[in-house]
Protein backbone atom coordinates (compact mmCIF):
# COMPACT_ATOMS: atom_id res chain seq x y z
CA UNK A 1 0.00 0.00 0.00
CA UNK A 2 1.16 3.51 -0.81
CA UNK A 3 0.20 6.24 1.61
CA UNK A 4 -2.12 8.99 0.26
CA UNK A 5 -0.19 11.93 -1.15
CA UNK A 6 2.77 10.01 -2.53
CA UNK A 7 3.46 8.13 -5.76
CA UNK A 8 5.78 5.20 -6.30
CA UNK A 9 8.65 6.52 -8.40
CA UNK A 10 9.57 4.63 -11.57
CA UNK A 11 13.22 3.61 -11.67
CA UNK A 12 15.29 4.35 -14.79
CA UNK A 13 15.69 0.59 -15.30
CA UNK A 14 11.92 0.21 -15.05
CA UNK A 15 11.41 2.93 -17.65
CA UNK A 16 13.94 1.30 -19.99
CA UNK A 17 12.16 -2.04 -19.61
CA UNK A 18 8.85 -0.37 -20.53
CA UNK A 19 10.46 0.93 -23.74
CA UNK A 20 10.97 -2.74 -24.68
CA UNK A 21 7.19 -2.95 -25.14
CA UNK A 22 7.71 -0.92 -28.31
CA UNK A 23 8.96 -4.05 -30.04
CA UNK A 24 5.32 -5.18 -30.44
CA UNK A 25 3.84 -2.11 -32.21
CA UNK A 26 7.02 -1.67 -34.29
CA UNK A 27 6.83 -5.30 -35.40
CA UNK A 28 3.14 -4.94 -36.39
CA UNK A 29 3.79 -1.68 -38.28
CA UNK A 30 6.80 -3.24 -40.04
CA UNK A 31 5.06 -6.51 -40.87
CA UNK A 32 2.21 -4.74 -42.65
CA UNK A 33 4.68 -2.49 -44.53
CA UNK A 34 3.12 0.71 -43.30
CA UNK A 35 6.44 2.60 -43.64
CA UNK A 36 5.68 4.05 -40.24
CA UNK A 37 8.46 2.29 -38.30
CA UNK A 38 11.05 5.03 -38.80
CA UNK A 39 8.67 7.87 -37.97
CA UNK A 40 7.34 5.93 -34.97
CA UNK A 41 10.89 5.48 -33.61
CA UNK A 42 11.68 9.18 -34.20
CA UNK A 43 8.42 10.20 -32.50
CA UNK A 44 9.10 8.01 -29.46
CA UNK A 45 12.63 9.41 -29.17
CA UNK A 46 11.34 12.98 -29.52
CA UNK A 47 8.62 12.35 -26.95
CA UNK A 48 11.13 10.89 -24.48
CA UNK A 49 13.70 13.68 -24.91
CA UNK A 50 11.06 16.46 -24.89
CA UNK A 51 9.39 15.15 -21.72
CA UNK A 52 12.77 14.61 -20.06
CA UNK A 53 13.73 18.24 -20.79
CA UNK A 54 10.28 19.50 -19.76
CA UNK A 55 10.68 17.61 -16.47
CA UNK A 56 13.90 19.51 -15.80
CA UNK A 57 12.47 22.90 -16.92
CA UNK A 58 9.28 22.51 -14.95
CA UNK A 59 11.26 21.57 -11.83
CA UNK A 60 13.08 24.92 -12.07
CA UNK A 61 10.00 26.88 -13.07
CA UNK A 62 7.96 25.52 -10.15
CA UNK A 63 10.78 26.32 -7.73
CA UNK A 64 11.17 29.84 -9.15
CA UNK A 65 7.38 30.48 -9.48
CA UNK A 66 7.88 33.89 -11.10
CA UNK A 67 4.92 35.36 -13.07
CA UNK A 68 7.10 36.57 -15.95
CA UNK A 69 8.88 33.24 -16.31
CA UNK A 70 5.54 31.38 -16.11
CA UNK A 71 4.04 33.62 -18.80
CA UNK A 72 7.14 33.26 -20.98
CA UNK A 73 6.86 29.48 -20.73
CA UNK A 74 3.18 29.62 -21.74
CA UNK A 75 4.13 31.92 -24.64
CA UNK A 76 6.57 29.29 -25.91
CA UNK A 77 3.82 26.64 -25.71
CA UNK A 78 1.45 29.03 -27.48
CA UNK A 79 3.78 29.66 -30.43
CA UNK A 80 4.39 25.93 -30.85
CA UNK A 81 0.61 25.37 -30.72
CA UNK A 82 -0.02 27.96 -33.46
CA UNK A 83 2.80 26.55 -35.61
CA UNK A 84 1.38 23.05 -35.26
CA UNK A 85 -2.18 24.16 -36.12
CA UNK A 86 -0.91 25.84 -39.30
CA UNK A 87 1.39 22.96 -40.28
CA UNK A 88 -1.08 20.14 -39.65
CA UNK A 89 -3.96 22.20 -41.03
CA UNK A 90 -1.86 22.64 -44.23
CA UNK A 91 -1.96 26.43 -43.93
CA UNK A 92 0.88 28.91 -44.41
CA UNK A 93 1.99 30.15 -40.99
CA UNK A 94 2.84 33.72 -42.05
CA UNK A 95 -0.84 34.45 -42.77
CA UNK A 96 -2.19 32.74 -39.68
CA UNK A 97 0.31 33.29 -36.83
CA UNK A 98 -1.04 36.67 -35.67
CA UNK A 99 -4.79 35.86 -35.79
CA UNK A 100 -4.14 32.47 -34.15
CA UNK A 101 -2.00 33.96 -31.36
CA UNK A 102 -4.56 36.73 -30.64
CA UNK A 103 -7.48 34.27 -30.65
CA UNK A 104 -5.80 31.75 -28.36
CA UNK A 105 -4.43 34.37 -25.92
CA UNK A 106 -7.94 35.84 -25.63
CA UNK A 107 -9.38 32.34 -25.02
CA UNK A 108 -6.76 31.54 -22.36
CA UNK A 109 -7.37 34.82 -20.53
CA UNK A 110 -11.10 34.08 -20.30
CA UNK A 111 -10.84 30.39 -19.40
CA UNK A 112 -7.85 30.60 -17.03
CA UNK A 113 -9.38 33.56 -15.18
CA UNK A 114 -12.76 31.88 -14.92
CA UNK A 115 -11.64 28.42 -13.87
CA UNK A 116 -8.53 29.22 -11.83
CA UNK A 117 -9.90 32.45 -10.37
CA UNK A 118 -13.57 31.61 -9.78
CA UNK A 119 -13.79 27.80 -9.71
CA UNK A 120 -10.55 26.62 -8.07
CA UNK A 121 -10.15 30.02 -6.38
CA UNK A 122 -6.37 30.13 -6.24
CA UNK A 123 -5.33 33.54 -4.97
CA UNK A 124 -2.45 33.93 -7.39
CA UNK A 125 -3.63 33.21 -10.97
CA UNK A 126 -0.14 32.74 -12.38
CA UNK A 127 0.92 30.15 -9.78
CA UNK A 128 3.16 27.80 -11.77
CA UNK A 129 1.69 24.61 -10.23
CA UNK A 130 -1.79 25.43 -11.55
CA UNK A 131 -1.30 27.93 -14.35
CA UNK A 132 1.21 25.94 -16.40
CA UNK A 133 -0.34 22.44 -16.36
CA UNK A 134 -3.94 23.70 -16.79
CA UNK A 135 -2.91 26.06 -19.64
CA UNK A 136 -0.83 23.25 -21.16
CA UNK A 137 -3.83 20.92 -21.17
CA UNK A 138 -6.02 23.64 -22.65
CA UNK A 139 -3.45 24.36 -25.36
CA UNK A 140 -3.12 20.68 -26.27
CA UNK A 141 -6.87 20.41 -26.75
CA UNK A 142 -7.17 23.80 -28.49
CA UNK A 143 -4.52 22.59 -30.90
CA UNK A 144 -6.37 19.39 -31.77
CA UNK A 145 -9.72 21.11 -32.34
CA UNK A 146 -8.20 23.90 -34.37
CA UNK A 147 -6.23 21.55 -36.61
CA UNK A 148 -9.47 19.76 -37.50
CA UNK A 149 -11.57 22.93 -37.77
CA UNK A 150 -9.08 25.02 -39.78
CA UNK A 151 -8.32 22.17 -42.12
CA UNK A 152 -12.02 21.50 -42.67
CA UNK A 153 -12.97 25.17 -43.04
CA UNK A 154 -10.34 26.41 -45.50
CA UNK A 155 -9.99 23.21 -47.50
CA UNK A 156 -13.77 22.78 -47.73
CA UNK A 157 -14.16 26.29 -49.12
CA UNK A 158 -11.39 25.51 -51.61
CA UNK A 159 -12.81 22.12 -52.58
CA UNK A 160 -16.39 23.43 -52.76
CA UNK A 161 -15.43 26.76 -54.26
CA UNK A 162 -18.27 26.62 -56.80
CA UNK A 163 -20.79 26.37 -53.94
CA UNK A 164 -18.98 29.20 -52.11
CA UNK A 165 -18.92 31.34 -55.24
CA UNK A 166 -22.55 30.48 -55.95
CA UNK A 167 -23.42 31.93 -52.54
CA UNK A 168 -21.43 35.12 -53.23
CA UNK A 169 -22.89 35.40 -56.74
CA UNK A 170 -26.39 35.03 -55.26
CA UNK A 171 -25.79 38.15 -53.16
CA UNK A 172 -24.47 36.59 -49.92
CA UNK A 173 -22.24 38.74 -47.76
CA UNK A 174 -18.88 37.28 -46.76
CA UNK A 175 -20.39 36.26 -43.41
CA UNK A 176 -23.39 34.60 -45.06
CA UNK A 177 -21.23 32.75 -47.59
CA UNK A 178 -18.89 31.24 -44.99
CA UNK A 179 -21.70 30.44 -42.53
CA UNK A 180 -22.36 26.82 -43.64
CA UNK A 181 -18.61 26.15 -43.84
CA UNK A 182 -18.15 27.31 -40.24
CA UNK A 183 -21.01 25.00 -39.23
CA UNK A 184 -19.33 22.04 -40.97
CA UNK A 185 -15.96 22.85 -39.36
CA UNK A 186 -17.54 23.05 -35.89
CA UNK A 187 -19.33 19.72 -36.46
CA UNK A 188 -16.11 18.02 -37.51
CA UNK A 189 -14.12 19.47 -34.63
CA UNK A 190 -16.65 18.89 -31.85
CA UNK A 191 -18.42 15.66 -32.67
CA UNK A 192 -15.52 13.64 -31.16
CA UNK A 193 -15.31 15.86 -28.04
CA UNK A 194 -19.06 15.56 -27.42
CA UNK A 195 -18.93 11.78 -27.92
CA UNK A 196 -15.92 11.55 -25.59
CA UNK A 197 -17.70 13.50 -22.84
CA UNK A 198 -20.68 11.14 -23.02
CA UNK A 199 -18.55 8.03 -22.37
CA UNK A 200 -16.00 9.45 -19.97
CA UNK A 201 -15.68 7.44 -16.80
CA UNK A 202 -17.42 4.47 -18.41
CA UNK A 203 -15.07 3.71 -21.27
CA UNK A 204 -12.05 5.81 -20.35
CA UNK A 205 -10.52 7.35 -17.28
CA UNK A 206 -9.12 10.68 -18.42
CA UNK A 207 -5.46 11.61 -17.97
CA UNK A 208 -5.88 14.39 -15.46
CA UNK A 209 -8.03 12.32 -13.12
CA UNK A 210 -5.74 9.29 -13.42
CA UNK A 211 -2.76 11.53 -12.70
CA UNK A 212 -4.38 12.94 -9.58
CA UNK A 213 -5.39 9.52 -8.29
CA UNK A 214 -1.85 8.19 -8.93
CA UNK A 215 -0.54 11.31 -7.20
CA UNK A 216 -2.42 10.23 -4.07
CA UNK A 217 -5.44 12.54 -4.24
CA UNK A 218 -8.89 11.47 -3.17
CA UNK A 219 -10.98 10.35 -6.20
CA UNK A 220 -13.76 12.77 -5.16
CA UNK A 221 -11.31 15.67 -5.59
CA UNK A 222 -9.96 14.15 -8.81
CA UNK A 223 -13.42 13.97 -10.42
CA UNK A 224 -14.17 17.60 -9.55
CA UNK A 225 -10.97 18.68 -11.26
CA UNK A 226 -11.79 16.43 -14.20
CA UNK A 227 -15.30 17.87 -14.61
CA UNK A 228 -13.88 21.38 -14.41
CA UNK A 229 -11.23 20.48 -16.95
CA UNK A 230 -13.73 18.96 -19.40
CA UNK A 231 -15.90 22.08 -19.20
CA UNK A 232 -12.86 24.34 -19.54
CA UNK A 233 -11.52 22.37 -22.51
CA UNK A 234 -14.87 22.28 -24.32
CA UNK A 235 -15.50 25.99 -23.82
CA UNK A 236 -11.92 26.95 -24.69
CA UNK A 237 -12.03 24.83 -27.83
CA UNK A 238 -15.26 26.37 -29.11
CA UNK A 239 -14.16 29.95 -28.33
CA UNK A 240 -10.71 29.48 -29.88
CA UNK A 241 -12.02 27.74 -33.02
CA UNK A 242 -14.59 30.41 -33.76
CA UNK A 243 -12.12 33.23 -33.01
CA UNK A 244 -9.34 31.67 -35.10
CA UNK A 245 -11.68 31.24 -38.08
CA UNK A 246 -13.34 34.66 -37.81
CA UNK A 247 -10.12 36.56 -37.15
CA UNK A 248 -8.02 34.82 -39.80
CA UNK A 249 -10.92 35.35 -42.23
CA UNK A 250 -10.06 39.05 -42.19
CA UNK A 251 -6.69 38.31 -43.78
CA UNK A 252 -7.34 35.44 -46.14
CA UNK A 253 -10.23 36.63 -48.29
CA UNK A 254 -9.45 39.27 -50.93
CA UNK A 255 -11.48 42.45 -51.44
CA UNK A 256 -13.73 40.54 -53.88
CA UNK A 257 -14.60 37.96 -51.21
CA UNK A 258 -12.48 35.19 -52.77
CA UNK A 259 -10.40 32.77 -50.72
CA UNK A 260 -6.75 33.58 -51.33
CA UNK A 261 -5.45 30.22 -52.48
CA UNK A 262 -1.82 31.12 -51.70
CA UNK A 263 -2.62 30.67 -47.99
CA UNK A 264 -3.05 26.90 -48.40
CA UNK A 265 -0.02 24.67 -48.23
CA UNK A 266 -1.27 21.75 -50.27
CA UNK A 267 0.90 21.01 -53.30
CA UNK A 268 -2.07 19.75 -55.30
CA UNK A 269 -3.57 23.23 -55.03
CA UNK A 270 -0.49 24.88 -56.51
CA UNK A 271 -0.51 22.42 -59.42
CA UNK A 272 -4.23 22.52 -60.21
CA UNK A 273 -5.51 23.38 -63.65
CA UNK A 274 -7.10 26.74 -63.10
CA UNK A 275 -9.76 26.75 -65.77
CA UNK A 276 -11.73 23.89 -64.28
CA UNK A 277 -14.30 25.55 -62.05
Amino acid at each position, binding site marked *: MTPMGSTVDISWTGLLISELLLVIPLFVLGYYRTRLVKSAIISVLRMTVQLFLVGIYLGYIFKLNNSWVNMAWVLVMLVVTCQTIARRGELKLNYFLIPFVISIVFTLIIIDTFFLGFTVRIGYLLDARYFIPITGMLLGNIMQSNVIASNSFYHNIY*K*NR*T*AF*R*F*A*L*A*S*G*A*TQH*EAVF*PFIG*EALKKAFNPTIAQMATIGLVSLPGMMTGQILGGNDPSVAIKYQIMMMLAVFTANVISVILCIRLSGRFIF*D*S*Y*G*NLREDILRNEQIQKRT*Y*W*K*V
Partner: protein
Amino acid sequence: MIFSLRDVTVAFDGKSLFSPVSFDLKEGDKIAVSGPSGKGKSSLFNVLLGFERRYQGEVSFDGKPLLPAVVLDIRRAVGWLPQEINVLSTQTVREFIYMPFEYQVNKPKRPTLDRIEYWFDELNLKPDILDHPIGSVSGGEKQRIGILTVMLLQRPVLFLDEPVAALDAKMKKKVVDLLLGNTDITILSTSHDAVWNEHCNKIITL
Protein backbone atom coordinates in the same frame (compact mmCIF):
# COMPACT_ATOMS: atom_id res chain seq x y z
CA MET B 1 -25.26 48.40 -72.40
CA ILE B 2 -24.79 46.21 -69.34
CA PHE B 3 -21.42 44.55 -69.79
CA SER B 4 -18.68 45.61 -72.16
CA LEU B 5 -15.65 43.42 -72.85
CA ARG B 6 -12.70 44.67 -74.87
CA ASP B 7 -9.86 42.29 -75.85
CA VAL B 8 -10.52 40.12 -72.83
CA THR B 9 -8.68 36.88 -72.18
CA VAL B 10 -7.76 34.89 -69.10
CA ALA B 11 -4.06 34.24 -68.68
CA PHE B 12 -2.23 32.01 -66.20
CA ASP B 13 1.57 32.25 -66.01
CA GLY B 14 1.59 34.38 -69.17
CA LYS B 15 -0.40 31.81 -71.20
CA SER B 16 -3.79 32.92 -72.53
CA LEU B 17 -6.59 30.36 -72.41
CA PHE B 18 -8.22 31.79 -75.55
CA SER B 19 -7.72 34.57 -78.11
CA PRO B 20 -8.92 37.96 -76.81
CA VAL B 21 -12.66 38.56 -77.27
CA SER B 22 -14.65 41.80 -77.48
CA PHE B 23 -18.42 42.08 -77.20
CA ASP B 24 -21.19 44.00 -75.46
CA LEU B 25 -24.04 42.45 -73.54
CA LYS B 26 -27.04 44.74 -73.92
CA GLU B 27 -30.48 44.57 -72.33
CA GLY B 28 -32.52 41.71 -73.76
CA ASP B 29 -29.50 40.10 -75.45
CA LYS B 30 -29.20 36.32 -75.58
CA ILE B 31 -25.54 35.52 -76.15
CA ALA B 32 -23.95 32.07 -76.29
CA VAL B 33 -20.21 31.56 -75.86
CA SER B 34 -19.11 28.48 -77.69
CA GLY B 35 -15.81 26.62 -78.03
CA PRO B 36 -14.02 23.39 -77.14
CA SER B 37 -14.06 22.04 -73.55
CA GLY B 38 -11.31 23.36 -71.33
CA LYS B 39 -10.90 26.47 -73.45
CA GLY B 40 -11.96 28.78 -70.60
CA LYS B 41 -15.62 29.50 -71.35
CA SER B 42 -16.58 29.24 -67.70
CA SER B 43 -13.65 31.50 -66.78
CA LEU B 44 -15.42 34.36 -68.54
CA PHE B 45 -18.22 34.15 -65.95
CA ASN B 46 -15.61 34.02 -63.19
CA VAL B 47 -14.04 37.21 -64.55
CA LEU B 48 -17.39 39.04 -64.76
CA LEU B 49 -18.40 37.93 -61.25
CA GLY B 50 -15.07 38.98 -59.71
CA PHE B 51 -13.88 35.42 -58.96
CA GLU B 52 -11.04 35.42 -61.48
CA ARG B 53 -8.63 38.35 -61.38
CA ARG B 54 -6.03 36.98 -63.78
CA TYR B 55 -7.50 38.47 -66.92
CA GLN B 56 -6.25 40.88 -69.52
CA GLY B 57 -8.25 43.50 -71.41
CA GLU B 58 -11.02 45.82 -70.26
CA VAL B 59 -14.29 44.84 -68.65
CA SER B 60 -16.97 47.24 -67.49
CA PHE B 61 -20.43 47.00 -65.97
CA ASP B 62 -22.73 49.94 -66.73
CA GLY B 63 -19.62 51.84 -67.79
CA LYS B 64 -17.77 51.20 -64.52
CA PRO B 65 -14.58 49.09 -64.17
CA LEU B 66 -14.69 45.88 -62.09
CA LEU B 67 -13.76 47.34 -58.71
CA PRO B 68 -14.92 45.48 -55.56
CA ALA B 69 -17.97 47.76 -55.08
CA VAL B 70 -19.02 47.29 -58.72
CA VAL B 71 -18.63 43.51 -58.38
CA LEU B 72 -21.04 43.62 -55.43
CA ASP B 73 -23.58 45.40 -57.68
CA ILE B 74 -23.03 42.76 -60.36
CA ARG B 75 -23.62 39.95 -57.87
CA ARG B 76 -26.94 41.55 -56.96
CA ALA B 77 -27.99 42.01 -60.60
CA VAL B 78 -26.93 38.66 -62.02
CA GLY B 79 -28.27 35.16 -61.46
CA TRP B 80 -25.46 32.64 -62.06
CA LEU B 81 -26.03 28.98 -62.78
CA PRO B 82 -22.70 27.13 -62.72
CA GLN B 83 -22.25 23.94 -64.73
CA GLU B 84 -22.17 21.90 -61.55
CA ILE B 85 -22.64 23.03 -57.99
CA ASN B 86 -20.87 20.69 -55.62
CA VAL B 87 -23.09 21.59 -52.69
CA LEU B 88 -22.74 20.15 -49.21
CA SER B 89 -24.06 16.63 -49.72
CA THR B 90 -26.26 16.67 -46.61
CA GLN B 91 -28.40 19.53 -47.93
CA THR B 92 -31.91 18.66 -49.14
CA VAL B 93 -33.37 20.03 -52.37
CA ARG B 94 -35.67 22.29 -50.33
CA GLU B 95 -32.72 23.66 -48.30
CA PHE B 96 -30.79 24.25 -51.51
CA ILE B 97 -33.64 26.19 -53.12
CA TYR B 98 -34.24 28.33 -50.03
CA MET B 99 -30.52 28.91 -49.31
CA PRO B 100 -30.12 32.11 -51.39
CA PHE B 101 -33.24 33.52 -49.72
CA GLU B 102 -31.55 33.28 -46.32
CA TYR B 103 -29.26 36.08 -47.50
CA GLN B 104 -30.37 39.51 -46.35
CA VAL B 105 -30.46 40.96 -49.85
CA ASN B 106 -32.85 38.25 -51.17
CA LYS B 107 -35.14 37.91 -48.12
CA PRO B 108 -37.94 40.08 -49.60
CA LYS B 109 -38.09 37.73 -52.61
CA ARG B 110 -38.41 34.52 -50.55
CA PRO B 111 -40.80 32.35 -52.61
CA THR B 112 -43.93 30.72 -51.24
CA LEU B 113 -44.28 26.96 -51.49
CA ASP B 114 -47.00 27.51 -54.14
CA ARG B 115 -44.51 29.40 -56.27
CA ILE B 116 -41.95 26.60 -55.97
CA GLU B 117 -44.58 24.01 -56.79
CA TYR B 118 -45.57 26.04 -59.87
CA TRP B 119 -41.98 25.91 -61.13
CA PHE B 120 -41.68 22.24 -60.23
CA ASP B 121 -44.70 21.62 -62.43
CA GLU B 122 -43.35 23.81 -65.25
CA LEU B 123 -40.02 21.98 -65.21
CA ASN B 124 -41.58 18.54 -64.79
CA LEU B 125 -40.01 17.90 -61.38
CA LYS B 126 -41.74 15.62 -58.86
CA PRO B 127 -42.59 17.50 -55.62
CA ASP B 128 -41.49 14.55 -53.44
CA ILE B 129 -37.81 15.20 -54.28
CA LEU B 130 -38.00 18.42 -52.22
CA ASP B 131 -36.92 16.48 -49.15
CA HIS B 132 -34.33 14.29 -50.89
CA PRO B 133 -30.63 15.07 -50.40
CA ILE B 134 -29.48 17.18 -53.35
CA GLY B 135 -26.61 14.74 -53.87
CA SER B 136 -29.07 11.93 -54.63
CA VAL B 137 -31.01 13.53 -57.52
CA SER B 138 -30.08 12.92 -61.17
CA GLY B 139 -27.99 15.31 -63.30
CA GLY B 140 -31.05 16.44 -65.26
CA GLU B 141 -33.07 17.08 -62.08
CA LYS B 142 -30.16 18.99 -60.54
CA GLN B 143 -29.92 21.17 -63.64
CA ARG B 144 -33.65 21.96 -63.54
CA ILE B 145 -33.44 22.69 -59.78
CA GLY B 146 -30.58 25.11 -60.56
CA ILE B 147 -32.62 26.84 -63.30
CA LEU B 148 -35.60 27.08 -60.94
CA THR B 149 -33.48 28.61 -58.15
CA VAL B 150 -32.00 31.20 -60.50
CA MET B 151 -35.48 32.03 -61.87
CA LEU B 152 -36.86 32.47 -58.34
CA LEU B 153 -34.14 35.06 -57.64
CA GLN B 154 -35.76 37.22 -60.36
CA ARG B 155 -32.49 38.78 -61.54
CA PRO B 156 -32.55 40.85 -64.76
CA VAL B 157 -29.35 39.22 -66.09
CA LEU B 158 -28.57 35.49 -66.13
CA PHE B 159 -25.18 33.80 -66.56
CA LEU B 160 -25.90 30.21 -67.54
CA ASP B 161 -23.12 27.64 -67.88
CA GLU B 162 -24.25 24.81 -70.19
CA PRO B 163 -27.87 25.23 -69.05
CA VAL B 164 -29.40 22.42 -71.14
CA ALA B 165 -26.52 19.92 -71.25
CA ALA B 166 -28.24 17.35 -69.03
CA LEU B 167 -31.80 17.76 -70.36
CA ASP B 168 -33.76 15.57 -72.77
CA ALA B 169 -35.08 17.03 -76.06
CA LYS B 170 -38.57 17.83 -74.72
CA MET B 171 -37.33 19.56 -71.58
CA LYS B 172 -34.62 21.33 -73.57
CA LYS B 173 -37.29 22.91 -75.78
CA LYS B 174 -39.28 23.93 -72.73
CA VAL B 175 -36.24 25.60 -71.09
CA VAL B 176 -35.23 27.28 -74.37
CA ASP B 177 -38.75 28.78 -74.69
CA LEU B 178 -38.86 29.74 -71.03
CA LEU B 179 -35.47 31.49 -70.91
CA LEU B 180 -34.58 32.54 -74.43
CA GLY B 181 -38.18 33.44 -75.24
CA ASN B 182 -38.36 35.88 -72.33
CA THR B 183 -37.58 39.38 -73.65
CA ASP B 184 -37.24 40.83 -70.13
CA ILE B 185 -34.19 38.74 -69.29
CA THR B 186 -30.65 39.29 -70.56
CA ILE B 187 -28.67 36.07 -70.92
CA LEU B 188 -25.00 35.30 -71.32
CA SER B 189 -24.49 31.57 -71.66
CA THR B 190 -21.92 28.97 -72.57
CA SER B 191 -23.25 26.10 -74.60
CA HIS B 192 -22.31 23.27 -76.91
CA ASP B 193 -25.96 22.70 -77.69
CA ALA B 194 -27.10 23.43 -81.26
CA VAL B 195 -30.76 24.04 -80.30
CA TRP B 196 -29.82 26.50 -77.55
CA ASN B 197 -27.25 28.29 -79.72
CA GLU B 198 -29.76 28.60 -82.62
CA HIS B 199 -32.13 30.56 -80.40
CA CYS B 200 -29.48 32.99 -79.15
CA ASN B 201 -29.07 36.28 -81.01
CA LYS B 202 -25.28 36.19 -80.93
CA ILE B 203 -22.62 33.46 -80.75
CA ILE B 204 -19.09 34.22 -79.55
CA THR B 205 -16.60 31.49 -80.45
CA LEU B 206 -13.49 31.11 -78.29
